[in-house]
């Protein structure tokens, strides 16, 4: 049992003295403030990554056409002379779009924001286990981001070897024309790795040691479970990436030959290291969203989550299986083809826990009482789009079919269905759902619905036809597909996709506006606007330093909605059972009886 948090610390909450501005808003050790810092930083990098995507789509939608007037003035002749994007700048755009989105937007927005916000509040802890390490974990990120941004301004421009940085292309500026940019890319990601590792260390420790009395493993809300699994993946995968990056940096700067064939290095070794990190990374980017969506769907359907235990087991299985599938990124790499079937089998097995989760979400909606609020819409969109992303994965899991679609737009479509349709819609669900707890006010519902509807429409218009481009054999990361005669006829469809992306990007202004405007003008939320059962919603919005006025005691699972014997359609985790007469006795002996759903 995890009853290590001493009650005295909670009693001492009232004695917290007023903090200076710097300690409260900048170098804060409060997990909620750190979550907000990650949120603002992550959203800014998300916007930056989105702008890079718009640039990419400009080139693909209107190849050789100068950028619109105001935008073309921003770029110097080394990037876009006369507003026409250069091939080398295009390669940098592709690389940096993915880098910012994966490492500086999605990871901080999932683990950084919600790991920090949810874990202590959902398990009933006063803060994270290591508040100062937590502060360091945040402050490393803008430093890494600054280094990454700086690489745009050095001679030769930003890294252009793809976010996968395949060696030997990435080992020398000789091959790309990018010298300093690639080195800064490596240094930035090495630095950023420490942010993830410190964060993950905190998440794991906090979940394992600081749960409130009665918060057994199978009473933990699924969002915390998802971040717990993710944290383990981070803790184990990031050091592998960091190790690889250091070797690559040595190849770049010290003349070693880990990955360069001169001096008998192995280019494929880089791919093995990268994808051994890279596939767990994919689950780092999707598991938390699965957790958020589970919370939202159960709450907004007013129903216990369907198959809570299966949901947990599925997440843990996905976490394990993520380690044995990396070779499916390498079917065409020259890796021994006899290994192919091994990775085919392990890869398709991942369909099983994914299907379990999908069917359980659907089972939760079944016979529910579904409230169509913005978080629910985003959460159901996640399920609908994750189905597409999951099913398209089966095509490429089949190694012989992958021969044709590998490195085509089919892959681009698949990964954006998982990382935008999945992760980003999951993040939208999470932000709109927990915003009232973070800021004490609701986001505007009407604006939220308009943002959702337009996003969903433009998103699908942009990414669904990419599957078809892949079927026609269009390669990814191609500056101008019209170089190939057989792709010239697809230009109108590329233009259609590009305009849809521009519309999708523009729609996000609505979200930004709603987010900022609601900070001041939103409806005051109260403690529990969604009538949720988890401990998080028993605190004031926003929760004070120390979170809980007194140590909460947990009596039941996190999704006790619509219990037939109760008037209210939710049953908070910390509400003493009605049969008990004296609450004081229970507090002394925190071993509540098991209840259904536990």
């Amino acid at each position, binding site marked *: 049992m995890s009853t290590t948090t001493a009650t005295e610390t909670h009693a001492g909450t009232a004695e917290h003295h007023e903090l200076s501005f710097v300690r409260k808003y900048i170098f804060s050790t409060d997990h909620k403030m750190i979550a907000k810092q990650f949120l603002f930083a992550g959203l800014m990098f998300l916007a930056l990554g989105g702008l890079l995507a718009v640039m990419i789509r400009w080139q693909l939608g209107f190849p050789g056409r100068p950028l619109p007037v105001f935008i073309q003035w921003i770029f110097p002749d080394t990037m876009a002379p006369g507003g026409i994007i250069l091939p080398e700048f295009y390669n940098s755009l592709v690389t940096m779009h993915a880098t910012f989105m994966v490492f500086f937007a999605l990871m901080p927005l999932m683990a950084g924001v919600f790991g920090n916000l949810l874990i202590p509040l959902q398990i009933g802890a006063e803060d994270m286990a290591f508040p100062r390490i937590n502060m360091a974990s945040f402050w490393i990120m803008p430093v890494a981001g600054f280094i990454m941004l700086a690489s745009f301004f050095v001679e030769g421009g930003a890294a252009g070897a793809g976010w996968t940085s395949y060696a030997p292309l990435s080992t020398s500026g000789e091959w790309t024309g990018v010298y300093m940019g690639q080195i800064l890319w490596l240094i930035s990601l090495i630095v950023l790795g420490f942010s993830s590792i410190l964060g993950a260390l905190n998440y794991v420790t906090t979940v394992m040691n600081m749960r409130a009395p009665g918060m057994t493993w199978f009473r933990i809300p699924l969002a915390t479970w998802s971040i717990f699994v993710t944290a383990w993946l981070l803790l184990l995968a990031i050091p592998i990436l960091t190790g690889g990056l250091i070797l690559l940096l040595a190849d770049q700067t010290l003349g070693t030959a880990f990955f360069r*064939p001169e001096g008998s290095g192995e280019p494929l070794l880089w791919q093995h290291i990268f994808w051994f990190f890279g596939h767990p990374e994919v689950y780092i980017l999707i598991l938390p969203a699965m957790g958020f969506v589970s919370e939202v769907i159960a709450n907004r359907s007013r129903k216990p989550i369907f*198959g809570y235990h299966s949901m947990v087991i599925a997440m843990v299985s996905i976490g394990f299986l993520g380690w044995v599938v990396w070779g499916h990124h390498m079917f065409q790499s020259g890796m021994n*083809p006899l290994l192919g*079937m091994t990775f085919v089998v392990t890869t398709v097995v991942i369909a099983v826990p994914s299907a379990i989760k999908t069917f359980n979400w*659907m089972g939760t909606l079944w016979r529910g009482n579904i409230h169509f609020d913005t978080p629910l819409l985003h959460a159901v969109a996640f399920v609908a789009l994750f189905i597409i992303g999951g099913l398209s994965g*089966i095509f490429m899991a089949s190694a012989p079919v992958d021969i044709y679609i590998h490195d085509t737009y089919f892959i681009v479509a698949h990964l954006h269905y998982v990382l935008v349709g999945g992760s980003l819609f999951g993040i939208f669900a999470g932000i709109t759902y927990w915003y009232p707890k973070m800021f004490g006010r609701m986001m505007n519902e009407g604006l939220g619905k308009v943002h959702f509807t337009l996003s969903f429409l433009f998103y699908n218009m942009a990414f669904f036809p990419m599957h078809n481009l892949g079927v026609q054999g269009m390669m990814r990361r191609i500056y101008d597909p019209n*170089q190939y005669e057989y792709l010239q006829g*697809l230009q109108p469809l590329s233009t259609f996709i590009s305009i849809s992306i521009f519309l999708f990007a523009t729609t996000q202004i609505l979200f930004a506006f709603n987010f900022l405007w609601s900070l001041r003008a939103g409806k005051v939320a109260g403690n529990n606007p969604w009538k949720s059962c988890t401990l998080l919603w028993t605190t004031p919005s926003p929760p004070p330093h120390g979170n809980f006025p007194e140590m909460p005691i947990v009596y039941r699972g996190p999704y006790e909605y619509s219990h037939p014997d109760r008037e209210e359609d939710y049953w908070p985790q910390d509400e003493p059972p009605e049969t008990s007469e004296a609450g004081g006795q229970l507090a002394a002996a925190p071993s509540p009886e098991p209840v259904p759903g536990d």
Partner: protein
Amino acid sequence: MNFFWRMGMLLAGMLTVVIVLWVITGPSWTDLSWVMPDNTVSTFGPTLDNLWLIILWVTGIIFVVTEITLLVFMVKYRHKEGRKAEYIHGSNNAEIVWTTVTFVIVMALAFYSKGLWDEIRDPNLIPADAYQIQMLASQFEWNATYAGADGLFDTADDFISRNVLHIPVDRPVVVQLMAQDVIHSFFLPEFRVKQDAVPGMITPVWFEATRIGEFTLACAELCGLGHYTMSGTVIVHSQADFQDWLAQQQAAAEDD
């Protein structure tokens, strides 16, 4: 009725947006095909296209059924005043059913894929009588080396064909892929062939053309700023024409 009216209007509005943008940009409906293009010219191409079609059917059915179910649930179980959700925590039977069914389906697809994978990639199954060509990829060109009259590489009568790969029809060909600088990927869309060329490695890839004609050779792996220009042509000759072409090139090579 109100609910359905509003949803109907919303859908109609969305559809209008799609159609308007579609008409403005002007793609063809056939661009949206999910079936592999009917252009394959290798012996294993039709088998691969067929496997694609099987996966398309399986995933397509699952896609339609799950998305419709989701939609029905959303409509049917939407919030109504005075209704309470059912207090259900799950069903072990349901979990067992969908776990087993999913497992069986994906395993069947995996093992069904094995035959074709072995046929294309098993190094022991490369046809022994295949015609050998060496292909050196470099930034940003494809250099195909032919062995010349003696049938041996690294001899004086070798000759190189740049960015044009000549091969005979109805005879297996093995291309020994190499790369000079960075990784390139040897992609023949019509042949359903793709294989990375990695510096420091020699990777064999075989295929057999079933039709005479000119086809695409593309680079599918980002290989630097000229990556998008790294295209070439595959010319499939009749066997007699191929012999003539070889003789002609050898003569030219010997003249040098």
